[in-house]
């Protein structure tokens, strides 16, 4: 087995837990992602113990409450007087499982809320694990919205150019080249400058996705146009024309099914751009704003330089960005391998 195949298998194995984690963040996290605890800002990840202070072994793992020992440095120490055992399926804050099943069960927590922070806390004492999982939802929302706009725009322009031909085709393809030649991130910033600084969550998600899609669609349009020109001169399309089928009928019956594999592969190739775009825009403070949670927004914590030297657990979203991109790249590779002729 070649290592490329191993990578693809690894990506497939990783993709499932990632999707599961993103779909039920509340179940997996011990605290609400927006719950602040200002007495516990930048607390380090809880250490899970089996042996207590007397050296006695316990089958049930437990954690200690954190206490500040240096107010200026923000250093914490475990308070060993009282231990908090961890339980599976603990009742905690209420939420909707998968968005519609009311529940209050959480996978792993101590029965006392606000003690167990498996990945530590951020500047406002919010649980980093909960925020990373909840942030996945925002980031993936931008991904799916972006992919939808990207496909729609790319297929529409490509189909129009391919079906119409002539000067429409030339004009649209020149426009594609124009967009491709633009400095992408600079243009996104220029476009973003025209929008209000603070926007509600959904508006931010849609506009972030649309901004990124509006400068990344040309490869999709080019590929679709090429395929349509190919099919246009194929025997069966000509036969359909001779039978008096309208261009729309030919497009729907004879072209759309043939375009689907390419369009799918192309969206997987483009997917990392949307993840990365959201993270970069939010990191640069022009995507999701404070209060909304996303991977890029979490990385803004870095404005406090102590995050790098002392509170490194706040960089957890970075690992998730890497894993997601790794999965998408390798799944894209698999699609390309299955159908190498159709990848632009």
């Amino acid at each position, binding site marked *: 087995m*070649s*290592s*490329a195949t191993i*990578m693809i298998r690894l990506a497939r194995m990783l993709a499932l837990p990632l999707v599961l984690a993103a779909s039920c963040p509340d179940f997996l996290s011990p605290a609400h992602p927006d719950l602040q605890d200002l007495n516990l800002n930048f607390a380090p990840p809880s250490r899970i113990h089996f042996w207590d202070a007397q050296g006695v072994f316990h089958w049930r793992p437990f954690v200690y409450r954190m206490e500040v020992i240096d107010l200026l440095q923000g250093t914490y120490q475990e308070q060993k007087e009282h231990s908090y055992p961890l339980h599976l399926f603990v009742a905690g804050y209420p939420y909707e499982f998968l968005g519609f099943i009311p529940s209050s069960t959480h996978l792993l927590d101590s029965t006392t809320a606000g003690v167990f922070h498996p990945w530590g806390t951020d500047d406002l004492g919010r649980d980093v694990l909960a925020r990373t999982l909840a942030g996945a939802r925002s980031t993936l929302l931008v991904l799916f919205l972006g992919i939808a706009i990207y496909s729609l725009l790319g297929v529409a322009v490509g189909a129009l150019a391919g079906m119409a031909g002539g000067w429409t085709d030339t004009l649209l393809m020149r426009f594609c080249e*124009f967009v*491709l*030649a*633009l*400095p*992408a*991130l*600079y*243009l996104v*910033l*220029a*476009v*973003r*400058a*025209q929008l*209000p600084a603070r926007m509600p969550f959904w508006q931010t998600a849609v506009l972030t996705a649309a901004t990124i899609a509006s400068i990344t669609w040309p490869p999709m349009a080019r590929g679709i146009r090429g395929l349509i020109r190919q099919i246009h001169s194929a025997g069966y399309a000509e036969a359909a024309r001779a039978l008096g089928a309208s261009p729309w009928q030919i497009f729907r019956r004879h072209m759309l099914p043939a375009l689907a594999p390419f369009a799918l592969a192309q969206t997987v190739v483009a997917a*990392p751009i949307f993840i*990365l775009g959201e*993270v*970069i825009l939010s*990191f*640069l403070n*022009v995507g999701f704003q404070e209060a909304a949670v996303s991977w890029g927004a979490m*990385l803004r914590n*870095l404005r406090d*330089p102590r995050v*790098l*030297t002392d509170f*490194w657990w706040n*960089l957890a979203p*970075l690992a998730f*960005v*890497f894993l997601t*991109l*790794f999965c998408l*790249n*390798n799944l894209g590779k698999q699609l390309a391998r299955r159908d190498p002729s159709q990848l632009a």
Partner: protein
Amino acid sequence: MRILAVILKRVLQLAALSLLVTLATFFLSSMIPGDFFTAQELNPAVRRETIDQMRHRRGLDQPMPVQYLRWLGRCTRLDFGDSDFFGRPVRGVVLDALAQTLWMAIPALALGLAGGIIFGTIHAIHRNRVAGQVFDLVSAITLSLPTLVLGLGALLLAAQTHWFPLGGMSSAGMQSPSFPTWLLDRLRHLVLPVGCLTLPIFAYVEKIQCAATQDCLDQPFLRAAHARGLKPLRIFFQYLLRPSLNPVVSTSGPLLGSILSGSLVLEVIFGWPGLGQVTYNALFNRDTALLVGCVVGSTILLVAGNLAADLLLIALDPRVRGQGDTA
């Protein structure tokens, strides 16, 4: 003649592109209310008349089409207006910032291209051996590491180990250093940003070069060269390396775009005062003239890069010269 036609076409394209970009940026910015002086309206120490006077002097009281045409007229004299924030001509600000960006971009491009071509070729030649498998692994991982992740990771490393400075261009407290000391200090500051910019370029070029070399390896002309008894070194350079460089050269122009985007992120992370950081600050300062200048500057750089790539391709591959359309 071919070369002249390509240059002419590219220059015309550049002009049209820049014009469209300025038009878009200008009119988009006319859609939002307010300008650079709006923030001062709330300042009780500033009189309303002063603000109006400033606006008049800057021409901000004119309607947008007039402003645009005036600006365009000055552009023909290479005067791109004044930055409201810096209080000096946009051209100077952009050129200074561009120079700082090139400190990062040129080494990154050179290292990424050289490394990618060398390792991509080795990767393809050893594709069925252990070395090829190792390269597959390295390629799969580096392709998933964008500049943002790398940049923050590198910053974390620097903060934990103190091996490299955390950002900026030079160490504080150096008064008129001698040239070697200055250069050494500058290079120390360059290591992390250049490294983070290089790795994604390297991964991309390596992937393309590997695929191109694999294609060439399967070509019959290679076997024919072997059969003619040519020296292995000559076969390698003339029959394998030269035709396989084609895709890398033609993608290195568009690659410049991703370098610009990558350097923007890295400049913000590492506090490097290049074009990206200037653009980013212009965005938040509502400095329209500077923002337009930066976008135009980066567009010119990009198209110039594409032109260079086209010319290189013509020089490298005689087959392209015969074709009707290269651009």
